[in-house]
């Protein structure tokens, strides 16, 4: 029996403006440790909304969310921020690096926030990660000097800095050309194999999804296949 990292128990969500529209309808699923899961579905099926709930950023839902068997539902904003910091790594579609900082500092920030290691250690870890993703040459460049593929790799390094329980991605390859998409996918794949890193990736790219271990398919706010 493998360990459950993420569990969604009958999660429902509706938008109320201007009329009530149900976005998510009774979502139930579990993600085991080390799994590489992709969530696919047409645009507007609610897969991104689900990801934001699972990532604890959106708290306006019904049902229960458990990460590492700890109930997230009902926690305060500050507690959830800590959970995101420690247990979740994010990779977004539009890179979302902080342009005010160098690539290295971008990777370091969540580690510094967690404060588990000294600044030197965090910097050392960040450099190791960047080496592994072969972006160590870019460390001292400003975030806005990097190309799309480079940014996404920096974002992956940032997601990994605190050894998270799970990495969540929202269309991490959506904005990249084929070559870069492949590089990013290979990195993610390698992470699951080498480090047993759990992945939950939302994508509308069937090719990407097809290469993952497990596919959760959504339609109109429901899971139709998992």
């Amino acid at each position, binding site marked *: 029996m493998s360990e459950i990292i993420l569990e969604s128990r009958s999660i429902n969500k509706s938008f109320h403006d201007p009329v009530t529209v149900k976005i998510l309808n009774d979502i139930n699923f579990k993600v085991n440790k080390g799994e590489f899961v992709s969530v696919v579905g047409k645009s507007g099926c609610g897969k991104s909304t689900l990801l*934001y709930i699972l990532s604890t*950023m959106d708290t306006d839902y019904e049902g229960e969310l458990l990460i590492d068997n700890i109930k997230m539902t009902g926690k305060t904003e*500050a507690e959830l921020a800590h959970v995101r910091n420690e247990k979740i790594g994010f990779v977004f579609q539009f890179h979302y690096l902080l*342009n*005010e900082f160098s690539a290295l500092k971008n990777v370091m920030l969540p580690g510094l*926030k967690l404060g588990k290691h000294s600044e030197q250690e965090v910097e050392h870890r960040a450099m190791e990660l960047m080496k592994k993703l072969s972006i160590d040459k870019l460390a001292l460049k400003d975030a806005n000097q990097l190309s799309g593929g480079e940014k996404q790799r920096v974002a992956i390094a940032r997601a990994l800095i605190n050894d998270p329980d799970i990495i969540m991605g929202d269309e991490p390859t959506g904005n990249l050309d084929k070559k870069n998409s492949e590089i990013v996918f290979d990195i993610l794949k390698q992470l699951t194999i080498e480090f047993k890193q759990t992945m939950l990736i939302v994508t509308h790219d069937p090719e990407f999804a097809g290469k993952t271990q497990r596919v959760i398919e959504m339609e109109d706010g429901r899971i139709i296949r998992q």
Partner: protein
Amino acid sequence: MNLRLIVSIAKSLLLARLKQTIVAAVGVTFSITMFVTLLGFMTGLNTMLDSLILNRTPHVRLFNDIKPLEVQPIDASGKFKGAYNFISSIKSGAGRKEIYNSGAIIQRINEDDRVLGLAPRINAPVFFNDGAIEITASINGIDVVEEMRLFHFNEYVTTGNPIDLKNVSNSIVLGKALAEKLLANIGDVVQLTTSQGERFPLKVVGYFESGLLDFDKTQAYASIGTVQKLLGKDKSYVTDLQVKLNDILLAPAVAKEYAILFQTDTEDIQTANSQFETGSRVRSIISYTVGITLLVVAGFGIYNILNMMIFEKMETIAILKATGFSGNDVKRIFMTIAMTIGVVGGLAGLLFGFLLSSLIDQIPFNTAALPTITTYPINYNIAYYIIGVTFALITTYFAGFFPARKAGKVDPVIIIRGK
């Protein structure tokens, strides 16, 4: 650790928007500069104008006023009890103007530890004889050393050495305007006649300029001994005792106490010069109002710039929150930005305020009315600097508080989805 991280993030955000930051800080700097300069200048002027009067006014003055008896003999007599008294034109008694038993009173007052010092004085009306013309004036017999120590007498003697009054026998210091009327130069001898008709020659050793022209036209100073001689009185004759206290605020109470204790008339400085205090207070209120208005305006500047910065940095805020910074952390980052602007702008404001004050202090300011003043007066009281920087911090705190709270409440989902 966390604080250091927040400060370093705030620093990066500030530096990324250096121009805006500088504009906001310059707003604070300008207002603090003006605040400090305005208050320094205003209170400098206030102090100068007040000291024109207050420096040479005793805190408590003891004297014997000429006035009719409060209880007339006819009222005291039992014979006319119940009768109506209609005697008019009652004269004041031929009381002496001198303070009785002055030696003992002086000794007693000098022993009082609330008292900084005491200067006896004789005030007598005299006529100056200038050929056929007689000019009415009054001569003040003063204890030169005490008068210089307590009432800045030396500051008002613009020509000649005041101590000569003591060292040169039968000498006099004339009001500048009076001396001009008499055409009396230093070293000249002027003739004066006392109210008893005695005529005396006195040697002019200096001119006196008080800043009040009317005063200078009618006043002259001589040593207390000279005036006693002039009036034919003995060594204990004094008409006024001028007391300077350590704390000016005690004056009314001390005046009352002495009136009873020494059986003389007394007057305190607050009663004698109440209008000066009112004037100073109104001027101070105006300067504070203007200064604080400037600071509030600067506060709105910071508020605007921070608000703008938050709109620009929505993505940054969202990503910080997504990677584990709580709303409070984000709030602290923006508060740090606001306070940095406040502190840097405020300190620069203090520096520029000091420089501007010093500059004003160098501007020549010559007026016939104020002989001792050569440049515009500035008060460098540290209190204004402290008030200024405190207010700057308070305004920036509030100017930063609301935008920072807004930043703390930014919902990362809306920003990240919205792209």
